[in-house]
């Protein structure tokens, strides 16, 4: 990282290791979410085919795929954060000197962390209320709402953990006077490794093409 001067102190190295571990777990959750969308597409397609040609329908596509979406969003939030893909407007910030820019990075993350805690609290309150009501959906499967909502709340909670882990590292980075390193941790997607990925996808398309 560009801001690094000399070897990083131990607490910072520990925070960095913690962040890498959390990011790996978050990536796993996001992959599960992504495959859930693939499964959702297959489920809906199966329902269309069954309805049109086989004369039956699952009677639960609307609900189940709705839960897939909710869970899918929640379980990918943390990974999206580690990939610096959550959207910020940093037109001005990126032009400011490190001295000002670095604390602003931290401020943005702090506000996001606060918001994520509020969201997670609200999600668990909802699960709690559904448990009180012993609420079910109106689909043929009569699913207990605490399950899809609980899975959703777990995803948002993972996002809170991700925010806190990043906060810890970012604070240490700032404390160690390596503010410039925050660009690599929290800066938005203009950075090289982000764009590489889109080109990687295009490269994947060319694999096997004899050119």
């Amino acid at each position, binding site marked *: 990282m560009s801001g690094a001067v000399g070897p990083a102190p131990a607490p910072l190295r520990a925070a960095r290791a913690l962040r890498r571990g959390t990011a790996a777990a978050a990536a796993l959750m996001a992959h599960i979410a992504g495959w859930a969308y693939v499964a959702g597409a297959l489920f809906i397609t199966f329902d269309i085919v069954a309805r049109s040609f086989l004369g039956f*329908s699952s*009677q639960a596509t609307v609900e189940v795929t709705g839960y897939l979406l909710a869970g899918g969003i929640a379980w990918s939030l943390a990974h999206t954060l580690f990939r610096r893909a959550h959207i910020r407007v940093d037109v001005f910030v990126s032009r400011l000197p490190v001295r000002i820019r670095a604390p602003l990075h931290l401020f943005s993350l702090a506000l996001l962390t606060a918001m994520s805690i509020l969201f997670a609290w609200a999600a668990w309150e909802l699960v709690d209320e559904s448990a009180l*009501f012993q609420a*079910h959906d*109106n689909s043929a499967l009569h699913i207990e709402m605490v399950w899809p909502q609980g899975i959703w709340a777990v995803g948002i909670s993972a996002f809170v953990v991700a925010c806190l882990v990043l906060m810890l590292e970012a604070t240490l980075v700032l404390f160690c006077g390596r503010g410039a390193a925050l660009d690599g941790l929290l800066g938005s997607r203009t950075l090289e490794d982000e764009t590489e990925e889109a080109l990687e996808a295009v490269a994947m398309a060319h694999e096997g093409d004899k050119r």
Partner: protein
Amino acid sequence: PSLPPGPPVRISAVTQPLPTQPQYTRVDQAILRDASAQRSNGRVQVTLSTHAERNLAGNEIVRLVRSGQVEIGAGTLTTLSGDVPILDGVDLAGLAPDIADAKRIAEAIIPVANRDLERFGVRLVALYPFPAQVVFCRTPFTSLSDLRGRRIRTFGNSLVDYFTALGAQPVSIGFPEVYSALERGVVDCAITGTGSGAAARWPEVTTHVSAMPVSWAVAGYMVNLAWWNRLDPQVRTFLEATMKEVSDAQWALGEAATRDGIDCNIGRAAECRIHSVAARPMTEVVPTDADRAETRRIFREVVLPGWIRRCGARCGEVYNETIAPISGVRFGG
């Protein structure tokens, strides 16, 4: 009713799904908002809005009222039954062949339902119907048995049970997509209120409409219990009287709108006063005695046991105690 002068009472209410519905313009706005303001000399001020304006799906109304977002909320019971299963029992498919029965059943169940609802901090103050829920099809049919094998868009468990028992294939599609689903033949038939079908311009995409009510889409007005109990007794009495009037007007509208919806759908311009008349008149399918008997049988053998299985044994007891004397069908013989 009237109200002596005093501190103003500001009430926020979220009632019908859409602002264009007659249940909203003719009753909620006319009585709940305007008449109550006028009679209380401006002391009672009701701010009305609809589910659509508040971005609500309709199944969260109990939670909305409970958490104090509004003082009064209304929603259809089938939609709310996910949170409070006993509410589904008021409006099972095939339970009430005419609106008078539906009204008696609704009035009988309010105190029982309130035992469940008050645990959650909510009280049901009035129940009311939407126009009868009937079948619209894009191809001709003359009796219920013709529906065998057809794809029918339904909502809620008791309608699914009912149409499955008829040998039809229930399909779940969101309401806004039903129009194009009927247009393109994704489904053959769909069930909705006579007037709701007219309002959603279903006559453009269907040809035959049954005149047999399968259910009533009974809905209820609920109040936040803590707020209700805190009210000045005079105000509470005033509001009770207002809600009674709202309820009566809704039942009268439900009856008028049921027939009006059919008349509008089949292009009888002279009788069509509440909804708008169909440009392409549909054919009315008048129910036969055999259809009514079959509906009765399905209700007894399939729909009722199905609901009690989902809702629990206590619902069976409640049903036999309060609803069976009116419907004439007992659970478990």
